[in-house]
């Protein structure tokens, strides 16, 4: 059974993103209510990148990204500093304010970027947006050390 971590985890790391998935699992009812998801995201944090697979009602797989676009729907990328700013903001407020939602950040396109090989893949980011927003806000529960 998934548990919320009390261990301080380094960001960025696959372990840190796995902790987000575990934190989401502890709130399964909320994610079930948001609805099913079928999507693979690559989150790029500076030079590092992680592949997150969402199936059913939650995130079922986290790994270091091997550079393959096979099965990947879209990428969300930003510098390590900008990810850090986002995560520290969420941890201070408990959730994103109006300037820090994922959609706002990628729509502005200044610091965060949404890309993908196919528009239909990019569109999955919109189709499951409320789930992804809830998911990133799990960061509030993860004791974090920035690498």
């Amino acid at each position: 059974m998934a548990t919320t971590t009390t261990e301080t985890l380094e960001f960025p790391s696959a372990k840190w993103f796995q902790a987000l998935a575990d934190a989401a699992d502890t709130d399964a009812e909320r994610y079930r209510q948001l609805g099913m998801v079928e999507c693979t995201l690559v989150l790029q944090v500076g030079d590092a990148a992680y592949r997150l697979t969402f199936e059913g009602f939650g995130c079922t797989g986290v790994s270091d990204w091997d550079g393959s676009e096979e099965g990947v729907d879209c990428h969300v990328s930003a510098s390590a500093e900008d990810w850090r700013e986002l995560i520290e903001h969420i941890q201070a407020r408990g959730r994103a304010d109006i300037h820090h939602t994922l959609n706002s950040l990628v729509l502005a396109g200044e610091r965060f970027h949404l890309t993908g090989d196919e528009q239909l893949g990019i569109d999955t980011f919109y189709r499951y947006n409320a789930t992804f927003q809830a998911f990133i806000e799990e960061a509030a529960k993860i004791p974090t050390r920035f690498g």
Partner: protein
Amino acid sequence: MTTTVSEPQTPSPTEYADQISLRPYAQAVRKGDFDLTWFNAEPGGGIWGQWGIKAEPSERGITLMDVDRASGLYPGPHAPPGVTPRGAGNEPGLGPRDWDLNDKHELWGENLVTLYEEATSRQWRATEDIDWHLLEELPPDLERATCQFNTFLTMGEYLVNDVLAPWIPAFNTYYHEIKLFLATQLMDEARHTEVFRKRTFANGGGLGMTLDLGNALAAIGATKISSGDGPGGEPGKNPLFSTWDHVSYAIHVVFEGAILSMFRFGEYLGKTDLDKQIFRMVMQDEARHVAYGTMHLKYLLDNSPDADAQLERLNDLATASEMFFLDLFFMHPATVESCSILAGDGLDGIEKGLEIYKMAYRKMREEYLLRTESAGLNRREACMLPPDLPF
């Protein structure tokens, strides 16, 4: 002088009860002689469908994909003329029934079944699932702009339902997926109308100025299905809405592609956590509608028996749709200005906000071009949506 209109063919309730009690089936049952045609029929013999099928539930429950997998009842390229649900048998003597759309390429998209399941799973309620307590009082100019933007969106939502709803009976029941998916879309659009309406009345504002949107559509016949346009009528006069392919392109690809961008922009513009939440939820629904439109377009172009002619027709239609919706939406003063005020954080920032509005328009245009391209319709050279707005 008053006259009494009698209808001799309609019996009284007592007469009717007597009549049905004389029917052979009623008489037979009274003697314990049941019909049981359906019960005794051999599976696969024409009266009963299959037997022994056991779809396995996944974590989500039993999906339509699970049922297709278990039964092997995937849709073929042509539907039989009848009301038979795909895989069922028929009562002896059951007659045929005509439908307007009987071929798979006319309506299918490879994501149609999964999108239906996604739609049912990701439904939400405007009354309970929106955290209305997160509303905060806004400066009057921002509240007024929010209300105008929401008024415009409310109109767009019922416009879509008015155009799409009459098409549900056009599809052969064999392709239940399209009927079911459209029903979810109608529910989605109803909820969007509802949530935008509620938002305008929830924070000290109210509904704003009605745009000439519905009138513009009515004038060209979009809502006049029975008088000629659309299913069951004469060939439509308005090419935007005369066939399902055209309706789906004009509505799902052009109109809702633009609306999806508007919702993303609305989330970005939202001045309270509540406004952000509303736009995240409607954005998800809208992206499903666009996903069907894109994949239907692809299926149509890949499978149409006259793909070249189809491509030509669609290009003509795209030209007309692009001009039509640009005028209705992106160039309308009330929309340009309400969005620019929100983007500029107030009336004083309207000019700065206009630049952000133009940025959102450019993104919308690019996403539209990428979607059509991926479906096999290259609009990059011919697109009537200008690369930038003329102000």
